[in-house]
């Protein structure tokens, strides 16, 4: 059950966990797998032509039609590390950590629009109102932090998210399990800053008065809920010092800041967030959602993706190095991915202009990667067909991903349930299988 102090109490997992925390690097909008992780030389042969009719059947896209033309990636791919995993030249830093990655090329979903796709990826359902993965984990495992929320959200990128708080809401779970957005400037958490004219000492004095009066009431009425409120106020007070301390990077070395690119453009914002994610995990935050928007390049994909890669490649790699060096990678599961991939077919509104080409949403086959606690390093799971249209081997649905993530955290996804509107809900709805090929 829940701790009565408003902090989710730690609860026992169902089996021995391989990881304690999750950092979810959410690449909002849908990165293009054929330009990053899933090389498709066959596309080059068909470049500029429509798909053979046999492959068009049953395709559903958001914008383009199944008769759109094939657009081969112009990126060179190379094998990297012992594992020989192929990664494109847009991600040179991550490529050097290929042996840490479990690259899942077999991802698929049915949702070809952003909002439902994102809801599915985060909350296990394309419909709104369901709890986010972080909320489920917090409900299932509780928080290990005495002074920070157990589920924190950081955002970066030039375009902002498109689904807003629904992606980290607690849905029908109690609000103590909601994701708490952290801003990296100004007020890190809503209402964290004291009102003007109230310093720490004054707030402490007020809290002591509140506590004294609440204790009198408790003695009179014996309602344990009052106890919970007293504890929640103490936690709030600690949060007011812990959150700024968390954000204060002055004790990080120049080398660390530089490794994340937190000291320079274009990596400053995303790099800072990655560094903060590491600091949060160090301080017992259970789930960090780090959202980067947006990869939704319907047009001008080359310049758009290139910019996103330049912004995120180095910080992602630095995060893996840093976690590993501090011994945290074993107990932290890092997940990178978007709500879907992008079509191997081109989308264009200005025919003839190569630089204006983009790709549509592609939920039938896309790539994500994981690293750290519990997953098999240097592995590739899933294979797509020669054109990257569909997954033909080791299909991994979003529900399967969720089941596998929960498994790494020691949770049986079928047993983590909450009764709502007359039925037991779970993150994986009525589906999901643990993908053992992904596990170490």
């Amino acid at each position: 059950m829940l701790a009565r102090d408003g902090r989710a109490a730690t609860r026992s997992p169902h089996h021995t966990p391989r990881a304690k925390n999750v950092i979810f690097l959410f690449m909002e909008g849908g990165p293009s797998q054929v330009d990053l992780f899933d090389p498709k030389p066959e596309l080059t042969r068909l470049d500029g032509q429509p798909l053979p009719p046999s492959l068009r059947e049953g395709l559903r896209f958001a914008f383009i039609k199944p008769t759109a033309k094939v657009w081969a990636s112009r990126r060179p791919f190379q094998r990297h590390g012992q594992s020989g995993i192929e990664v494109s030249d847009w991600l040179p830093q991550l490529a050097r950590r290929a042996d840490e990655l479990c690259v899942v090329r077999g991802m698929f979903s049915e949702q070809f629009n952003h909002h439902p796709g994102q809801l599915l990826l985060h909350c296990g359902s394309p419909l709104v109102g369901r709890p986010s993965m972080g909320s489920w984990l917090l409900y299932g495992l509780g928080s290990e932090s005495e002074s920070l929320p157990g589920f924190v959200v950081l955002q970066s990128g030039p375009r902002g998210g498109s689904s807003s708080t629904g992606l980290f809401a607690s849905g029908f779970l109690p609000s103590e399990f909601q994701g708490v957005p952290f801003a990296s400037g100004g007020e890190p958490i809503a209402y964290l800053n004291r009102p003007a004219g109230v310093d720490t000492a004054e707030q402490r004095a007020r809290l002591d008065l509140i506590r004294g009066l609440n204790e009198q009431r408790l003695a009179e009425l014996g309602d344990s809920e009052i106890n919970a409120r007293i504890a929640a106020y103490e936690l709030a007070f600690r949060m007011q010092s812990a959150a700024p301390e968390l954000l204060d990077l002055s004790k990080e070395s120049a080398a660390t800041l530089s490794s994340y690119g937190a000291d320079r453009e274009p990596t400053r914002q995303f790099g800072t967030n990655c560094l903060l994610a590491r600091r949060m995990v160090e301080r017992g935050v259970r789930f960090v959602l780090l959202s980067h928007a947006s990869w939704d390049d319907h047009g001008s994909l080359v310049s758009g993706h290139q910019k996103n890669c330049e912004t995120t490649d180095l910080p992602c790699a630095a995060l893996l190095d840093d976690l590993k060096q501090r011994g945290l990678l074993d107990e932290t599961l890092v997940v990178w991915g978007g709500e879907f991939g992008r079509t191997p077919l081109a989308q264009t509104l200005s025919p003839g202009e190569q630089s204006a080409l983009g790709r549509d949403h592609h939920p039938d086959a896309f790539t994500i990667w994981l690293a750290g606690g519990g997953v098999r390093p240097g592995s590739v799971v899933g294979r797509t067909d020669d054109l990257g249209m569909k997954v033909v081997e080791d299909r991994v649905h979003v529900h399967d991903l969720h089941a596998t993530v929960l498994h790494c955290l020691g949770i049986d996804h079928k047993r983590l349930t909450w009764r709502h509107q007359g039925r037991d809900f779970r993150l994986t709805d009525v589906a999901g299988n643990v993908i053992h090929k992904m596990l170490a």
Partner: protein
Amino acid sequence: MQIRLIVAAIILAPARFSLAQSVDFVREVQSILRGKCIGCHGADRPQSGLRLDRREDALKGGYSGTVIKPGDSASSRLFRLVAGKEAIAMPPGKARLPAVEVETLRRWIDGGAAWPDSVAESGEQPPAAYSHWSLRPIRKPPVPGVTPQPRNPIDAFVESKLAANGWRMSPEAARHTLLRRVYLDLTGLLPSPAELARTESYEQTVDRLLKSPHFGEKWARMWLDLARYADSDGYEQDQVRRHAWRYRDWVIGAFNRNVPFDRFTVEQIAGDMLPGASSEQLAATGFHRQTLTSREGGIDVEQLRTEQVTDRAITTASVWMGLTFECARCHDHKYDPISQLDFYRLYAFFNSTEEVNAAGPLAGEMERIERSKPEYERQYGEILAGGRVADLQPKWEAEVLKAMADPAARLEWTQVLDYLAVYQDHGHAILKTAPAQRTARQAHDLTRVFLKDPGPLASWPEAKGVKFGDNFKKLEDLNARYPGPSEIPAMRESATRRETRLFLRGDFRSPGIAVLPGTPRALPPLVPSGLPADRLALARWLMSAEHPLTARVAVNRFWQELFGRGLVATPEDFGERGDPPSHPELLDWLAASFRESGWDMKGLIRRIVTSRAYRQASRPRTGIDDPDNRMLARQQRFRLPAELVRDAALQASGLLQTAVGGPSVRPPMPLGTLKVAYRMKWEESPAADRYRRGLYTFFQRSVPHPMLVNFDAPAAMTTCSRRTRSVTPLQALNLLNAPEFAEAAGALAARIERDRPGGFGEQVRYAFELCFARPPSPPEAALVERYYRSRGNWTGAAAALLNLDEFIVRD
């Protein structure tokens, strides 16, 4: 069943037909059906609506249509499924039928699928009646005899139950506690010190509060949770719904006018279908305008529409019947007698319903619009000229119409066509209307889409130099400066009736059999027969005297609001998996009385709040082992809902604006939240509107106000029957630090010092009365005094009082 099978197997009878290699139906075919199929496709809750135990049903088929086509195994679904020729296979699981059995079924079907008369009937019987308590008719039970006999029958039911455990009710709560309780429960407001000092009986107080205009505000909140009320679309772009508040105003007014619950129901579900429907009755149908909408480019419009119809069906079933119909969307309900067919029969009532905005200008609005019309028209004309609309829009329309005729031909234009449907309600209908026939509003709406999305025309030579985006923005600005007349979001029946099909596995791309509107078979039939089976009939059926659920579900909601917990603790689920009632007789007595009273909502509330059960103290007593207080040996303390937490702070400090009704307002929003928001504009409301009750806070579904989220306001995505009540540090931060609460603390301090200049003693008494409706105890006064003396002003102490558990709890 085992015995019946054996008996049936003994009564062998020869098949009527004898074909080449004829199949012995009983020995060969029926043995397969019985052995492998009727476990799921028998008489008791047949899966996918298919029964294979009876000839008539087997040949009729299931949800997907017929499964046996005599003489044509290749197109018989039964054969295709067992032969592995479909995406799914039967029987489910790993075991396939042996090839010889598949071949037998093929031969049987190809040979004409003969099924002899002698074995046409099944030995199995479906379950006779539904025995679950909530589906049985409501009979008004006798009031139990208790000595002394309580005046209020509620107390007789509660006392007799307690007596069975050897328990008694708690004594009445202290007067100030009871007053604060009944004020909060009936109006959502605190009693003022002046009101505390009134000399009137408790009953007089109750009657006064029932007449207060704030009564409707308090009870509207309960109903708005059920109605999933919000001020924006929900999905993706989450556009503002400028007129959503018209429905909220209707709900507030309906509670204040004590509209009988049957009218209250009928008008919300089918107000538009009443003869000569008034504006008020149209506003009531705003209930089903609260459904979410997506305006994401690229969305499948039909998929969205089916989601919306589904939401309306599910919500109706949940709100009025406490049934979890959602489960039956994809398959027969696992626990309750709701088949997938039942779901789509209910769905069919809403399937030909469409959204419409009725004219609903506010007082004085038309005069203002008339006055500004010349200026508006002048600027609108400039925009039309700037966008070269007269010249270019007809060409654009021609291209989009061509795309409508042949969507595959020119895809860039098909995108514009799709966008038109998503972005503009009834966009396609407007396009198809000849320009001369369009209303001015329709012409404007189409031009707006043209300027926003000219499509490929933007790069045509004749459009060279036209700045579509600039002109679109100008138009948006113009409309913001000169808003058109107000409207009433409503529902109406579409001119053409849409055929409803059951969706296999709930997937709208897999239509099954055609379905007519109808009510679940476990419930009374839709009467009187002969009338059209439409929404109006559905609404009246819900309120019919025979309906076992509506009255029970409704009284339980009122009870929950007044005790913190329903007699049925799962107000959203009166099915098998829901909580059984703690006091079944009391529930039925209340339900029957409510119906007999002509569905008098205020009467029901009055009956409950004047009971001794309601007036009890809440403190747990030793010797009564009932931690959840199911037996009602006491009242219940519970935290106020989010809106009332806000109202209480504003009211105690004297800042609250008590105006009733009107458009939503935007109190300050923290910057961090705004950063998260996607294209959201949050223009803070001017001074006085910042202090309106929480009920009026603009509810942007994608980014609800954090204060509301922190205190467990529902997300307004789906219907909500009960809120969670969490205790979190974010709530503490909210009350300690949020600017509006800091402001309230300052105002409360100033009020104390201004109204009671005579010194600390009378000040602390006043402060406690304002916040808790009671004087402080000496130790409490001492604690506050010590702090107050060290500061010399009330600011910090006032802030502390607004943060106390007692302040945000209703006792």
